[in-house]
């Protein structure tokens, strides 16, 4: 039972990691809390749904389509909602992000109605793979773990060995110095939003497929939890975010298994962790000093 819950927790944790990576990278580069990130996750899910239902895509193509559409939306949000507000008080970008989230969620409610719907039929079957007597995993959850690992390895290689990847790190460390090296900072910001948004979209599609449900506000709770993860790991720290996401996934999964009928809801755990971290170690597990927002 423990091993089973841990395994479920890891799968859940990877979805949080995938959403939160974007937040932490964007914070790293722009020192901005991207409150519209959760809705980008929902954008990915709706894009995949449209791809499957109306454009005859198979599941894999629909995933790629979702990532591309989300990347475009992410870049657009940066370009039109955040960039005009650079160098203004950070609270204004925060409000702008929340505004975008509310706008897009309402738009989805108008277009797709607010009722949850099932994930469209992809012709794939959910199968259960028995690892041992008491441990099993569905192919969907296994896919989440594999996709999460592959995404992290690719991200690591990109940041470590490519020119643009190093430029992203340099920009996060000192934006002005980076522009003095000839780095087009706006392009770095756009690429950061693309990567983060694509990661959120793939997480969204896999979760929607796993829980077999799609609804307009489905990104808001994961988006908020991703914030908790990022604060837990330390704002701007990618390793911290990975550890933070896995911790949250595992804690949630264990509480579901062992603490049934608990006083607090499973979805509230993230926020309890957030409050504790803010009280005990506001810089997070791997963070340096935090700046006021």
């Amino acid at each position: 039972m423990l091993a089973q819950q841990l395994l479920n927790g890891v799968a859940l944790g990877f979805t949080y990691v995938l959403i939160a990576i974007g937040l932490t990278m964007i914070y790293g580069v722009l020192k901005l809390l991207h409150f519209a990130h959760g809705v980008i996750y929902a954008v990915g899910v709706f894009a995949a749904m449209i791809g499957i239902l109306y454009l005859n895509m198979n599941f894999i193509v629909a995933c790629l389509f979702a990532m591309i559409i989300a990347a475009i939306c992410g870049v657009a949000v940066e370009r039109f909602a955040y960039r005009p507000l650079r160098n203004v008080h950070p609270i204004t970008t925060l409000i702008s992000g929340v505004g975008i989230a509310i706008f897009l969620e309402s738009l989805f409610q108008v277009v797709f109605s607010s009722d949850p719907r099932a994930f469209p039929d992809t012709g794939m079957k959910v199968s259960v793979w028995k690892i041992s007597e008491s441990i099993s995993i569905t192919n969907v959850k296994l896919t989440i773990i594999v996709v999460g690992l592959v995404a992290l390895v690719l991200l690591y290689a990109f940041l470590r060995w490519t020119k643009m990847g190093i430029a992203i790190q340099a920009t996060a460390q000192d934006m002005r110095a980076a522009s003095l090296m000839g780095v087009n900072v706006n392009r770095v910001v756009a690429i950061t939003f693309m990567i983060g948004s694509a990661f959120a979209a793939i997480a969204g599609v896999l979760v929607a497929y796993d829980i077999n449900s799609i609804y307009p506000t489905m990104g808001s709770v994961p988006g908020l939890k991703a914030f908790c993860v990022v604060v837990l790991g330390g704002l701007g720290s990618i390793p911290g975010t990975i550890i933070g996401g896995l911790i949250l996934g595992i804690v949630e999964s264990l509480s579901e298994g062992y603490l049934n009928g608990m006083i607090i809801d499973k979805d509230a755990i993230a926020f309890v962790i957030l409050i504790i971290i803010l009280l005990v170690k506001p810089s997070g597990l791997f963070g340096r000093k935090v700046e006021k927002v």
Partner: protein
Amino acid sequence: MLKIDQLHVSYGSIQAVRNVSLHVDEGEVVTLIGSNGAGKTTTLQAICGLIPSKGSISYQGEKISGLAAHRIVEKGIAMVPEGRRVFPKLSVMQNLMMGSYTRKASKQELKHDLDMIFTLFPRLAERKEQFAGTMSGGEQQMLAIGRALMAKPKLLILDEPSMGLAPIVVKGIFETIHQIKANGLTILLIEQNAMMALSVADRGYGLEHGEIVFHDTVENLRKQDIVKKAYLGK
């Protein structure tokens, strides 16, 4: 090569730079000296497109005021910023590679230029994989200069390379600047340490309260009373 005409920069209501005109010819080393808050860094940031300014800045006959910083760097101006500003969590090697960001050079060319920088600064060669943030101030200054040279600039701008360094380290840094000059690079050197600055420069400008207060060749400047009194401590 670089020509600034009637430059004005203000931060809100504060006029930090007023009516500054100066020029740097090809192959020259020009120094801009002035005390704290004179507006030296502000002038440089205007040249590099980091802050908006009024007046005209042209480089190789082409107007560059109003361009974004990265476009100016692409034209061959490299800057060693005040306070060094190396990337603390990148290795020495990665910092140097960031210096060559705008170049489309072959691996061989880059290797050749890296070797040149490692001969100039043997200390950097020993520390290729070290995080820049963990190096001493002097080493960081070497790295900042090496990083700028990796851009293969036509004009090198240094903002107070002596700041916060022990006299012996400053001496080393200036020996390097002499070597760079001997290689024929055009240099604009900002300094508070006039003694050191005049030792390497061909011409000098003095900046006070945002305005140019003197301008002459180094030989003549050494003779001028105000320069002697205010900057050379004689």
